[in-house]
């Protein structure tokens, strides 16, 4: 395997950033110290869309400042792949729905979708939320498939993983946070929901308890956000590090080892793409289920008058 062949790097889905680094390293005559940071640029959000045979400058949109926060709505690489994944999912799911209506026994894409749907319904939504949680199943399905598609698109050459951007996972976590609160309020009523924030302790302790409970509400989605972001970023960093070894050793003979390792990690990433989509969905439904059921199980002394 030749290290200075750009197509070899391309075929390992590292895009132009890696290739450019390769060429830069080769061009500099092995004298310059290898900068791993350049390799990591590949993972950062940028305004450059790479595709086979070139790259495209994505459109900038002037930032909007609202209430002291500057919103940059430019179609960056991650926004592009976010939308691309959404459209891809829309097309596939629509196709699956159409196919399943036509055939009595689902096949192909329709069958594939149905396997995940049945799994999410019977193994995720029902055990965590009970029969009352079935109405939130479309939300869970959207979460699962959207994250899955974004993760998988990141594994395709020239693709970028939108879920390895912490802003994207934060957006998803904010929606999860909203859904957890909505489902809890819907299931318990607003009064019980607020009462639960007191943790069921004596009013004297409320100044301590209420901030802790409110903080607890935010830690769950925060963990979701960081978990997804870190997992999707981590795999890429490992692969880039392995490839970086080639440049650090400056020897083509070392290349097969990182390449084989990178292949293994790629397979692991394929698994992680599914796993993290599942974990995010499963934990969201678990948190929703906790909020929906907690009032029926606990018997807080201070709101015993609300006994069911």
């Amino acid at each position: 395997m030749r290290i200075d062949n750009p197509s070899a790097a391309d075929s390992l889905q590292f895009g132009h950033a890696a290739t450019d680094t390769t060429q830069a390293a080769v061009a500099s005559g092995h004298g310059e110290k290898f900068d791993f940071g350049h390799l990591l640029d590949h993972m950062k959000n940028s305004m450059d869309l790479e595709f086979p045979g070139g790259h495209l400058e994505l459109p900038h949109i002037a930032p909007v400042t609202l209430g002291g926060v500057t919103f940059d709505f430019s179609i960056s690489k991650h926004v592009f792949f976010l939308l691309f994944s959404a459209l891809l999912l829309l097309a596939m799911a629509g196709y699956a729905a159409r196919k399943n209506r036509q055939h009595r026994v689902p096949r192909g894409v329709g069958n594939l979708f149905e396997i995940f749907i049945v799994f999410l319904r019977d193994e995720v939504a029902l055990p965590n939320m009970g029969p009352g949680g079935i109405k939130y199943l479309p939300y869970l399905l959207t979460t699962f498939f959207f994250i899955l598609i974004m993760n998988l698109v990141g594994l395709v050459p020239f693709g970028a993983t939108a879920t390895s951007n912490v802003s994207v996972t934060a957006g998803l976590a904010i929606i999860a946070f909203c859904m957890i609160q909505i489902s809890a309020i819907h299931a318990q009523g607003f009064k019980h929901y607020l009462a639960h924030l007191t943790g069921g302790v004596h009013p004297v302790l409320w100044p301590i308890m209420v901030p802790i409970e409110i903080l607890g509400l935010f830690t769950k989605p925060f963990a979701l956000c960081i978990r997804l972001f870190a997992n999707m970023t981590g795999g890429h960093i490992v692969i880039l590090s392995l490839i970086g070894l080639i440049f650090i050793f400056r020897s083509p003979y070392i290349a097969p080892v990182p390449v084989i390792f990178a292949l293994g990690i790629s397979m692991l990433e394929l698994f992680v793409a599914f796993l993290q989509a599942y974990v995010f969905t499963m934990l969201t439904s678990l948190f929703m289920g906790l909020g929906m059921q907690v009032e029926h199980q606990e018997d807080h002394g201070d709101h015993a008058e609300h006994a069911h």
Partner: protein
Amino acid sequence: MFDINPGLMVWTIVTFILLAFVLGKYAWKPLLKSLHDREDAIRDALDQSEKARAEAAELLRQNEKNMARADEEYQKALREGKALAEKLKEEIVTKARQQAQQELQHAKEEIQRDIEAAKQQLRNEVADLAIKAAEKILDENLDPAKQKKLVDSVLNQLPKN
């Protein structure tokens, strides 16, 4: 890498919400519906096949019962027929025997009667013949003297009153 980009966050949220609504209407609803329909159809089909199986078993049981009953009836009819035939045969034979006996009796009586009649006739005829023979003998042998003597002897034999 760790800097939060509020614009991208808004993009994510907006995209997700739009995606959730569109998918909910055009993908998840029909997919879940077809799934649900199929599950119902399968459950119904299983229930129905279970019911049909039970019905078939019931029918089979009834059939077997009917068959057993029919067999029993057949055996009974056969037995009764045999008994009846036996009785009839017995009756016919008895009757025939009686009739034969009767006819034999009749025949015997007839024969007896005929014999009697024949005997009578024979006797009469013998008597006639004897008389005729006697007449003939008498005609040839009796002369007036003898006739006189004979008449006298007969007259003498007659009671004297």
